[in-house]
């Protein structure tokens, strides 16, 4: 069991540097492909931001090229508010969109421009 509040040493999960701290911990804990299964325990956390989520989970998906299915198969979430789990899912999906575009070799500026009609 990996306790988030202990890993970042704080129950306030808002700032990017705390997301970075969790990212480094998760990267190490997951190891190499096909990745270990881990459980992330959010007990005692108070707040969560998109910045924290992007730095911890979104960046992990992009850097390790983890699909949404793989992500939720390998990382189990406990003691996380239902709304916040939805935000984790959104963050992972957002990362998947980025991975897809990078894989296709699309120019990122053109991609962003196309989001106007996305």
């Amino acid at each position, binding site marked *: 069991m990996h306790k988030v509040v202990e890993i970042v040493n*704080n129950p*306030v999960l*808002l*700032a*990017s*540097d*705390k997301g970075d701290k969790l990212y480094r911990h998760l990267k190490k804990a997951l190891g190499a492909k096909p990745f270990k299964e881990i459980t992330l325990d959010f007990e005692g956390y*108070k*707040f*969560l*931001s*998109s*910045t924290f*989520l*992007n*730095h911890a*989970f*979104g*960046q992990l*998906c*992009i850097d390790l090229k983890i699909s949404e299915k793989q992500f939720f198969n390998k990382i189990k979430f406990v003691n996380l*508010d239902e709304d916040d789990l939805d*935000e984790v899912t*959104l*963050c992972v999906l*957002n*990362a998947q*969109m*980025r991975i897809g*575009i*990078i894989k296709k070799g699309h*120019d*990122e*500026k*053109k*991609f*962003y*421009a196309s*989001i*106007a009609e*996305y």
Partner: protein
Amino acid sequence: MQYYGIAPASFNALVTFEKQILKSDNLCELKVQFLRPYCIIFLDQLILTEKGVNFKIHSTYCDANQYLKQTGFKHLHKSAKCMEKDFPESDIIKLNKYIKKDFPLDEKVVKWIKSNIIKYIKTDGHLTKKITENIYEIINNGLVHGNNKNGISMAGQFYPLKNYFEIAFYDRGVGIPQLVKKEIKDLSLANDVDYIEWAMRKGTSTNKLTKASGLGLHFLSNFIKQNKGYLQIISGNGYFCIDEFDNHTKETIKNFIQGTIVNIRVNYN
């Protein structure tokens, strides 16, 4: 005194203040009787960015001076005539400011919200959490993207009879339309407000694709929708608003606003 957010017409007043202040040397008298929180933070950032800390203002009317004084506005001239009676102190969310040097600022922001907002309202833990998270997102966004040396200022007002509060944020840095136009040259939209709307979409960002980002404003608009609150973003010549019925209003304003103003209404009953 009721305050129903910022009407696009209000910007004429802000620009009048701006013109008067820019042409004054050390002191400026404003002929204004009532000031809303967004005016206070506009004046704060304007003076800090364009004139410096020694520049002072006062109003012809004591009501406005009194309000400036009670918000903790630092540029009120010492000779400014105030009212004999205070406005209710507990209705005012005092002026506050963060700059990049304050990073990491999450715990500072949490502490400030607790003692300046949460303390004055009856709310459950869930709403406290959402208020804190979303105010943090606005401040963080303003500091990171506005990139203004004078950071971001905020001030607000409680309306206890209506069970809501409003809080406004202003950074006089790079506005949303200017930032998006600079970073994403292929994106060609008609008006500044279209760039603001684009920035609100899920997944849009001015960061590289390899950097996970692009959800902050989307989360904020979801929160406002669930809360049946109010969100207004003004930047450049664009005015974007989401009201309590989730209607989206897009307008082009005549006068250019440097940087970005964000104003939110949050219900707490």
